[in-house]
């Protein structure tokens, strides 16, 4: 038998006295009730103090609040401190104000509904058990996968905050895609120099260990206790044990050079960038031939990416100003939603760049060995003024599709992460924060989540670093055991739950001796373990509980009996 203390909250008159009297008379007839107290405003520091004293004096082991929304009491507990000696899971709230008084017009019905709700709340209180809190020590060590600008920026920010960083890079050098760029659109410095500076800062920092020509092969464990197996190009393996992991593996460019696109006039943005850097002002030469006109064709492959527009306007300006080239930019929508881009766009137009915004993609054909671009000019007001335009230019810069790295799929499998739109790494609930992944302790940032412009990526890197610092700076991760738990005796190792778990919190381990099968045919001594939920990694969503065919999984804070108790189905 539980001893339950009841607190009736008048909520400053929202639950009127006559109604409360009726409630009290209902309570009198119920078992297990130690006492009931009325308060005018329970969510105030004084009332909470009295509540604590009552609970102590009466030696009750459960408490029920009849009043407003549970959120309200949570807020006041946060504000004034949790006054109750009881475990928080032994306190139940019935929202009489919103769910009876405001929901039901007829007073008699309201009292009846309140009675039912109270009985449920009391059932719930008497059948709940305490849930203990734990904390996990965290060592300040992080693994950053990917040595592009995102990885570099994150590693530096973490190291400056006293966190040990392993920076994993599959190639020989750090820098990634940024090395294909020569100039920023919005900063005066050269990209290469800027990257070199950052890389040399990394090499001078004793907290950062750069592991190049190495890839992640295997990942075990969860937040705080990851075990990452990495393999070098020469085949040697090592195991790292970081507390948190940041994935910043960037994106890849997919070139379509089939058919007409194989023509020598087509080049990519990166090739144009190199061309601009290698040539001496004032004449631009390619394969010994002077380039006088350049067209930029921004296809629909990257309709949701801003980078191409920015690069096109930036390169076009350089071509016009330094090399006296005539430029044409053909696009569907010109993305200028980056700081300073509208001004750049304006400048390019003033210098004579032509912008053609098409609804239907332009037609390409080969005329006298040159590529001709046919497009309708949509800038004319009247239909009859709409001339078809044919553009013959020496070079055509083509936007290539930005796609996820080919190893993204494999990495997802190793890391237990999800892939989202177009196959990039998916952030967790985008409303929480876009750099968090579906697994606690693993973050995704930069181009591997979505290709962005450099300054935006750097902001994202800073935010990711901040997330990691916030997670690790306390030295511990506090959590309570309101999570799913597998009964190893019931578990049939069917592997349903590890596949379903959206947070990759379930693994099959041999941790219970009781569940050992010996299957005929595959030899004796082959042992199975059982599924195990890691309490730190578990979000307590309950999907595995619902799906487990053997009903071997329970939510510790919300077991079936508790749900039945609330539904009055317990007997």
């Amino acid at each position, binding site marked *: 038998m539980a001893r339950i203390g009841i607190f009736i909250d008048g909520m400053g008159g929202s639950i009127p006295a006559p109604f409360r009297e009726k409630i009290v008379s209902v309570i009198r007839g119920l078992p297990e009730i130690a006492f009931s107290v009325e308060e005018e405003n329970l969510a105030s520091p004084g009332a909470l103090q009295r509540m604590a004293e009552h609970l102590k004096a009466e030696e009750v082991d459960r408490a029920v609040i009849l009043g407003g929304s549970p959120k309200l009491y949570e*807020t006041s507990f946060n*504000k004034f401190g949790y006054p109750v000696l009881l475990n928080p899971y032994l306190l139940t709230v019935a929202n009489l104000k919103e769910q009876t008084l405001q929901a039901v017009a007829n007073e008699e019905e309201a009292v009846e509904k309140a009675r039912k709700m109270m009985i449920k709340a009391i059932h719930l209180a008497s059948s709940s058990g305490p849930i203990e809190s734990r904390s996990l020590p965290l060592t300040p060590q992080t693994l950053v996968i990917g040595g592009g600008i995102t990885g570099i920026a994150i590693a530096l920010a973490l190291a400056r905050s006293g966190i040990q960083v392993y920076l994993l890079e599959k190639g020989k050098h750090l820098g990634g895609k940024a090395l294909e760029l020569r100039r920023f659109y919005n900063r005066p410095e050269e990209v290469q120099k800027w990257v070199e500076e950052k890389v040399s800062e990394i090499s001078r920092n004793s907290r950062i260990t750069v592991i190049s020509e190495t890839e992640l092969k295997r990942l075990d464990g969860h937040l705080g206790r990851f075990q990452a197996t990495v393999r070098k190009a020469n085949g040697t393996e090592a195991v790292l044990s970081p507390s948190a992991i940041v994935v910043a593996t960037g994106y890849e460019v997919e070139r379509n050079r089939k058919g007409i696109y194989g023509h020598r006039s087509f080049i990519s943005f990166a090739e144009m960038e190199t061309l601009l850097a290698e040539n001496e002002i004032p004449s631009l030469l390619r394969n010994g031939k002077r380039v006088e006109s350049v067209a930029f064709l921004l296809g629909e492959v990257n309709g*949701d990416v801003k980078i191409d527009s920015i690069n096109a306007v930036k390169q076009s300006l350089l071509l016009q100003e330094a090399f006296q080239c005539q430029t044409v930019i053909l696009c569907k929508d010109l993305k200028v939603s980056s700081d*300073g881009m509208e001004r750049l766009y304006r400048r390019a137009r003033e210098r004579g760049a032509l912008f053609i915004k098409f609804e239907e993609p332009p037609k390409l054909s080969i005329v006298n060995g040159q590529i001709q671009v046919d497009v309708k000019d949509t800038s004319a007001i009247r239909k009859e003024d709409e001339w078809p335009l044919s553009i013959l230019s020496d070079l055509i810069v083509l936007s290539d599709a930005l796609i996820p790295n080919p190893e993204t799929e494999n990495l997802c499998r190793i890391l237990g992460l999800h892939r989202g739109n177009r196959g990039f790494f998916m952030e967790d609930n985008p409303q929480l924060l876009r750099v968090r992944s579906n697994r606690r302790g693993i973050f995704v940032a930069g181009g591997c989540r979505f290709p962005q412009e450099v300054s935006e990526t750097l902001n994202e890197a800073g*935010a990711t670093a901040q997330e990691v610092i916030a997670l690790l700076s306390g030295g511990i991760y506090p959590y309570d055991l309101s999570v799913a738990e597998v009964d190893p005796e019931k578990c049939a190792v069917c592997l349903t739950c590890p596949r379903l778990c959206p947070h990759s919190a379930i693994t099959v381990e041999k941790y219970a001796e009781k569940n050992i099968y010996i299957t005929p045919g595959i030899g004796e001594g082959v042992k199975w373990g059982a599924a195990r939920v890691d309490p730190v990694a578990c979000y307590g969503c309950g999907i595995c509980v619902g799906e487990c065919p053997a009903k071997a999984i329970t939510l510790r804070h919300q077991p079936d009996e508790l749900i039945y108790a609330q539904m009055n189905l317990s007997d």
Partner: protein
Amino acid sequence: MTVAKELAQSGVSALLIERDPSLGGLAASFCCKASESCNKCFACVADKRVLEIRNGPSISILTQTELTGLKGGPGAYNVSLKNGKGRMDIDVSAIVIAAGVDPFDASLKAEYGYGRYKNVITARDLDEMLRLRGKLFCPSDGRLPKTVAFFQCVGSRDESIGNLYCSQVCCAYALRLIKAIRYQYPETKAAFLYMDIQPAGASFDQFLNSCRQDKGIRLIRSLPSKVYHSPLSDGLRVRFVDPLKGEVAEEPFDLIVLSVGLVLRKDSKSLARLFNLNFNEEGFFAPPPAQTGVFITGACSGPKDIDRSIIHAKSIACTVQQYLKGRS
């Protein structure tokens, strides 16, 4: 708010000063723009953040408080504050300015008739209508509009009013509003008049495609030149170039929504004077040198949506911590 919360989480004591009576700023005044599923407008995130901050134990908050003076130098500033209760001076090591933005004053674009015609409203007004009144209606007579036109780039990308920048948020904002309206009121048709569709992002392509597929939404690349108003019927006619017909067209609409851009708050001038801040070409705050210990974050450093403001704020929180670490 985000900076304060992040710093507090890492053990830096933070003082949050807000001039208005409530936290949240512009972001907290938006309505949810979900249709059948969430359209990621982040309005609820702002509300959640206010709750987190209010309930969080370790941040001191002063609302209805203004900054009146600044003394001292980098690393050891002394700020003077003034509120209803009186004045106070507080020593701080670093200052983060997140003064935010205002929506553009649409009455400056006189040809659209905002402020003169009742049924010309801003996207912000529409948002408020949906949030506070819970329904869509024409302000003139309260009936449900059958046709709504959204004008983009009102106060952005416009040299005539001196705002030569893209406000970066209004396309997505308007499209989400259209989506939400189309979901709630399927009989209402919407037209979206634009220059370029700007937003980019992981899920934007899908979102835009779903808008394109919706027969009740017309995306028209054309900025209207003028709104005509009939005083008798309160009807509105819009003059614009119709790219499909290839001619100048006039079309009646029941309601016109102006997608207003973002501008720095008017009172930011005094802040700039106080902190000796420079403005960038676009008229927003330029970040001061790192060693001054003054940091700029959020939309007052350049137009940003809620999501990117939060990312920027977290990133700045990281920089602030490094600054403080470097000094101690």
